């Protein structure tokens, strides 16, 4: 299985493709059989002893044994552990209702901020942006967000300050931006100083020193969706040299 | 402009008025006991009744509550006996909905809604007799009703319909003048600041005439505002006499 998965890395898979456990032609009685462990990411599902593909896309891998299907879509479905940018819509009782682009509004408790107590409420208004993480996100329950990690520290999450521009891109671009050695991020770094917050629900927030620069970054990122790497490099180069 | 001569050589219109003359305005405030504010206004032969309820709790769809302002809800309707032919559908047709929207937008600009968040103000206007300038009469009546209800506004909202015939602007059109394919401009104005709350124009008018027409409309509105002001002062005097020292 491992070998046939490895074979297909980089190929396009469609839902319905499956990988089944092929027994070896010859089983050696003397050698110890090494147990194969394959970690399935999004898009791959286990069913009995087969591995089914549930999303269309390209198969990717990460050493040593992680596989997933890289698919493209615009609409976000909440998943536990993902950090998203949400817009506060309602302040009621002890919770905020936050719109994160999913089918339901997620709830965010007052106390789920760093240093928040019953007396010391966080300063969040309707319409503010919050960067938070899903603790509960399955299809049966209302999604819940928190702005602290498991040890109680904010770790970069919380309510946004003022300024900056929020815009939407597809989820595939977000993943490309968040990849560990993302060439996209490296090229962005060459441009000019700016702050960029990447929400996995397809929302990006960018702030640069002037409105013009913010607009440039926003438009560059929006247009990166459909470009090949070469086109993108040229575009960034032009922007870097022309935009100043 | 075929048939009826809208402006004679001596400068008289069909009903004998001069070009810039407004029709006679008569108004009463506080005509209904049940409503928070009400007013009845006659402008020539056009008669309108306006009633205001609010600010009160949001009724109907809770989701439309605005967290920092009051919602203004307007309904415009014409009585079935208001026109020459009996009106089959007094409200719900496109024209009434459009008028309601325009009224709503006019008053959203004028009423200080930030003072009453999460609440609703209802304005109902009914035309009892329609003889031209329906929209303007509604706006004037509604202004008086809102004042009667004690809801704070930035200024009087006065409206007037003007038309353009033979290079002359005619103020306050009546029904016969409106129908003749005359370019008519309806303007709702806050007189003190000269700010236009609503501007609506139909039929062809050359761009160069726009300025004169708007000037005429603004002067007419200022005239209406003077009349409304007098009505309000008189009403307040009457009421204060009743409440005593």
């Amino acid at each position, binding site marked *: 299985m491992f070998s046939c998965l490895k074979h297909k890395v980089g190929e396009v898979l469609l839902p319905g493709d499956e990988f089944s456990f092929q027994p070896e032609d010859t089983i050696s009685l003397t050698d110890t059989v090494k147990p194969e462990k394959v970690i399935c990411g999004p898009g791959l599902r286990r069913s009995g002893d087969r591995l089914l593909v549930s999303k269309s896309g390209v198969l990717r891998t990460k050493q040593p044994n992680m596989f997933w299907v890289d698919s493209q879509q615009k609409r976000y479905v909440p998943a536990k552990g993902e950090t998203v940018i949400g817009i506060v819509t309602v302040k009621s009782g002890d919770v905020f209702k936050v719109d994160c682009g999913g089918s339901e509004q997620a709830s965010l408790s007052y106390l789920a901020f760093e240093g928040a107590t019953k007396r010391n409420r966080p300063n969040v208004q309707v319409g503010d942006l919050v960067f938070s993480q899903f603790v509960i996100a399955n299809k049966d329950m209302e999604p819940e967000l928190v702005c602290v990690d498991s040890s109680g520290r904010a770790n970069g999450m919380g309510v946004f300050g003022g300024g900056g521009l*929020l815009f939407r891109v597809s989820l595939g671009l977000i993943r490309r931006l968040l990849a560990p050695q993302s060439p996209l991020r490296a090229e962005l770094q060459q441009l000019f*100083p700016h702050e960029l917050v990447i929400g996995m629900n397809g929302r990006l927030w960018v702030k640069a020193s002037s409105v013009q620069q913010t607009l440039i970054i926003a438009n560059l990122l929006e247009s990166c969706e459909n470009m090949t790497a070469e086109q993108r490099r040229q575009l960034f180069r032009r922007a870097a040299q*022309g935009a100043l | 402009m075929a048939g009826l001569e809208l402006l004679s050589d001596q400068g008289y219109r069909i009903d004998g008025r001069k070009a810039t003359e407004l029709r006679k305005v008569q108004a009463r405030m506080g005509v209904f006991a049940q409503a928070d504010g009400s007013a009845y206004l006659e402008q020539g032969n056009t008669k309108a009744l306006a009633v205001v309820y609010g600010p009160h709790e949001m009724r109907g769809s809770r989701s439309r509550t605005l967290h920092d302002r009051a919602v203004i809800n307007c309904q415009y309707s014409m009585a079935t006996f208001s026109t020459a032919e009996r009106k089959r559908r007094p409200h719900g047709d496109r024209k009434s909905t459009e008028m309601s929207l325009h009224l709503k*937008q006019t008053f959203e600009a004028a009423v200080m809604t930030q003072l009453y968040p999460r609440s609703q103000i209802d304005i109902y206007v009914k035309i009892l007799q329609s003889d031209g300038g329906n929209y303007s009469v509604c706006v004037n009546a509604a202004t008086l009703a809102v004042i009667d209800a004690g809801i704070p506004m930035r200024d009087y909202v006065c409206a007037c319909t003007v038309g353009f015939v033979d290079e002359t602007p005619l103020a306050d059109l009546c029904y016969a003048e409106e129908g003749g394919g005359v370019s008519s401009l309806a303007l709702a104005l806050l007189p003190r600041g000269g700010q236009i709350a609503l501007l609506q*124009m139909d039929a062809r008018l050359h761009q160069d005439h726009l300025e004169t027409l708007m000037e005429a409309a603004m002067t007419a509105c200022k005239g209406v505002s003077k009349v409304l002001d007098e009505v309000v002062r008189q009403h307040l005097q009457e009421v204060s006499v009743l409440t005593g020292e």
Partner: protein
Amino acid sequence: MKDTPLANCERDFLLKAIEEKKRLDGRQTYDYRKIKITFGTDYGCCFVDLGKTRVMAQVSCEIVTPKENRPNEGIMFFNIELSPMASPAFEQGRQSELSVNLNRQLERCLRNSKCIDTESLCVVSGEKVWQIRVDIHMLNHDGNLMDAASIAAITALYHFKRPDVGIQGEEVTVYPPEERDPIPLSIYHMPISVSFSFFQQGTYLLVDPCEREERVMDGLLMIAMNKHREICSIQSSGGIMLLKEQVMRCSKIASVKVSEITELITKALENDKKARKAGGRFGFAESMPQERITALKKDETPVEMTDVTETAYDIVQKAEAPPQTVPSPVLPVPGMGQVGLGLQNSWGLEDDEEEEEEDDDSVEEQEEKVTKMEVEQHRKEQSSGDVVEISDSEEEEVIILQPEIPNRGPKNAGSSSDQKGAAKSKKRQTK
């Protein structure tokens, strides 16, 4: 379906950008987005693209009995459908405020201005007249539905041809298009609506708002005019307070825009007529292979309609700019979006990019350099406003390429290396 709520920072940013006279897509305050008009196979069907806003109009006709009070006039009926396809905020079936507004405005713009000769639609007075019905469907909502709808409606009406009718005594025969050629409608003039959006209590105004700008605007002023400078309809909506001077200014801007758009429409109609006459493929079949039907597709060829806008305002013709664009960034990959593609934008990106490319060429040749320098100087002067605006960041060394300095080659390298130095000191957080 609920639309995504607008965040406070989006609103603040948009308003701040508008105060600095910058728009999200790099247009100027009085610029329209790119307008594209395509026709279908039938007469009377047309698609209009205003940037990403897509609208389709279809004209049809049938014979009915006329109204009692107008026995010898035909009937015009307009209908705008806000289909949920266009935006998640539209609901099927319900007549929302916006739909009523658009319908009424279109009716007033086209019907009350008497742009169509209704008396010519009469067949038998008092008994039979033509009823012309214009159906407009919104396919994608990215702001400014009213203008797109008005352009689509009037273009479709111009494009439409009704069947010929023969009257013999009491009998009325309607000839199908195979027997007798259909006749176009008799239209007096072309009213086109121009929308202005106001911000910050009327201090700032924009022409042709896109969907985000529409969300933060205070109100909208719609002026419908024809190219003879006759105003057909004015409507202010949203609770804004206007001043008389603003209205006059808007009407002047509107007259300029309307004449440009009228030219565009006449050109599109002519092209279509030529294509049909030449027997070439037209209509949807033609649009398909070029992938013009698909939404959100951007053309590589900068068919500059914004150029037409700019010639009205700019001193120097920017129209030369597109042909000099180096073709390599403009690869014919479908679905490619380019920053400010085809649009002349005010970021100074494309201008400086063109200069830089010319620098590469001009390093070797002296004579070419001279002519190119002049062209660049032209462009530099005119876009110097843009360049100056960008350089208000004090955080890094900004070297503006001076138009007077002759040898640009080494300077370029110098600036880019300074760039990299600045890049090191910049802070960037990913979360």
